[in-house]
């Protein structure tokens, strides 16, 4: 048997090995190069879980010490705005100037994580008012929500309107308008669903 015939088996194996090598290389390359903070990979999954937990805990602690309620009541009823200027009526570059806003900035802003804070209210929580809007979230954004209940005798916290209650605004005895209408019976004014959307810049 001539030596050259003998090597056919080796050539076949070589061909298989080459094919596997190319496929494995492609697969590995696709997975390896895609690991950025925005891509779907194991490390990023971790990131999303972490951000969700942080957002949830931030809402929970702010609600527990009353900062969240104070933040959603920081509304100027005459100029109908959260900010001190008329337009836009929401914050775009950071949290509102109160304890909740400071917590947001310290938790997310300083770590280059963008956030939107929107408040849903009304009979079916169908209406939405923006408190902070930093733009459109990416595909890898995570959300956290917390419902805050407001009573009719809650006072606004905006500068110069500290003595205005929600009841006085809804029955017209004080000038201006709150962004949410009285949607509940009895002593409850409305339930405000605060939704934070967080994403890595």
């Amino acid at each position, binding site marked *: 048997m001539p030596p050259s015939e*003998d090597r056919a088996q080796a050539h076949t194996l070589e061909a298989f*090995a080459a094919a*596997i090598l190319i496929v494995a290389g492609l697969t590995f390359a696709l997975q390896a190069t895609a690991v950025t903070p925005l891509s779907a990979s194991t490390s990023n999954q971790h990131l999303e879980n972490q951000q969700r937990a942080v957002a949830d805990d931030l809402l929970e602690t702010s609600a527990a010490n009353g900062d969240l309620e104070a933040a959603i009541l920081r509304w100027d009823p005459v100029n109908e705005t959260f900010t001190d200027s008329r337009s836009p009526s929401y914050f775009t570059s950071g949290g509102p100037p109160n304890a909740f806003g400071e917590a947001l900035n310290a938790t997310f802003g300083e770590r280059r994580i963008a956030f939107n804070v929107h408040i849903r209210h009304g009979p079916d929580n169908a209406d939405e008012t923006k408190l902070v809007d930093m733009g459109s979230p990416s595909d890898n954004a995570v959300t956290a929500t917390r419902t805050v209940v407001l009573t009719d005798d809650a006072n606004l916290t905006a500068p110069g309107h500290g003595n205005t209650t929600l009841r006085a605004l809804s029955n017209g005895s004080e000038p201006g308008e709150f962004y949410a209408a009285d949607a509940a019976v009895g*002593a409850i004014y409305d339930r405000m669903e605060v939704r934070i959307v967080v994403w890595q810049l």
Partner: protein
Amino acid sequence: MAAVIPGASDGDGPRGDRRFRDADRGQLLLISGLVVAVSLVALVVLLNASIYSENVATRGIEAADGEALEVRAAAVEETGKLIDGTNRNRPANHSEATAAVEEGIADLDEYLARAYADRGGVTRVSGDPSSIRAGRYVTGNLTANGTGDSNATLADGVAQTRGFVVEVDPDELAPTDAAGAPTDAFYIEFDDGVNETREVYVYNGTGDNVTVAVGQNGSAPTVVCSTPTADRVAVDLTGGTLGDERCPGLWATSAGALGAPYDVAIERTDKANGTVTATVRPDSGDAVGSDLTSSPAVYDAEIDLSYRTAELRFETTVRVAPGEPDA
């Protein structure tokens, strides 16, 4: 290649062929090694993919767990605010107060049902009217307490107290220290009528810090905490906070259990200025003796709560009494 293999050209045909084939297997070994290496890499990639999908797949379960607690928190928070808001509206009598709370719970049930329906959950919140216990909502000014005297009864014959907050003006508090507090400072006294009393003194201590000291049976009090002077300082006796800070040991029973019913009095109010608010549950009947303004109120309520999704069934009964001390 044949030329470099020793003995391949010695003319011994069959022997030379066999030796050549043996040497030829080096290439096969090399390729086999490569195949094993590539297989290992492929295995790692596969394993990574499966761990990733496992991670994604298990994420949903945690979210569903949290949702039941979220419903519970929402229901408890709103019922608490509803009870306190109703009390602050000063209903004319207890049946009016109870009706307002019942109506509020029914509205809460409707709201939660709508809010969670679009997340695939079914909620049910119901309040048992018999679990809504009557109380009194007591408010008033420390100095103008209706007696014309510096001592006044806040509530007599009390079984339980919650939401007991005294807001004091730091400028009007007596400057003293723990030793001088029993003779000089404004204080709140809890007296169970069988020789057990608890006193909570509020005064301007060192550096004009608003200081709270707790004593029992008229003995020398112990300072529990102090806070720098603010515009108005809220002493939350049942919540255990002074101003914005936690203040453990502020509630009267932390110095030892107190029998029920007990009487609550504010003493030496000429050494302080401010307001007081408390919700109390009478030991018997539905009224307490008080020198301040007391109106019919709801002390606490029990709500039955259930939350159901395709994977989860959660049922619980919660008693709601916002601002009630642990002991």
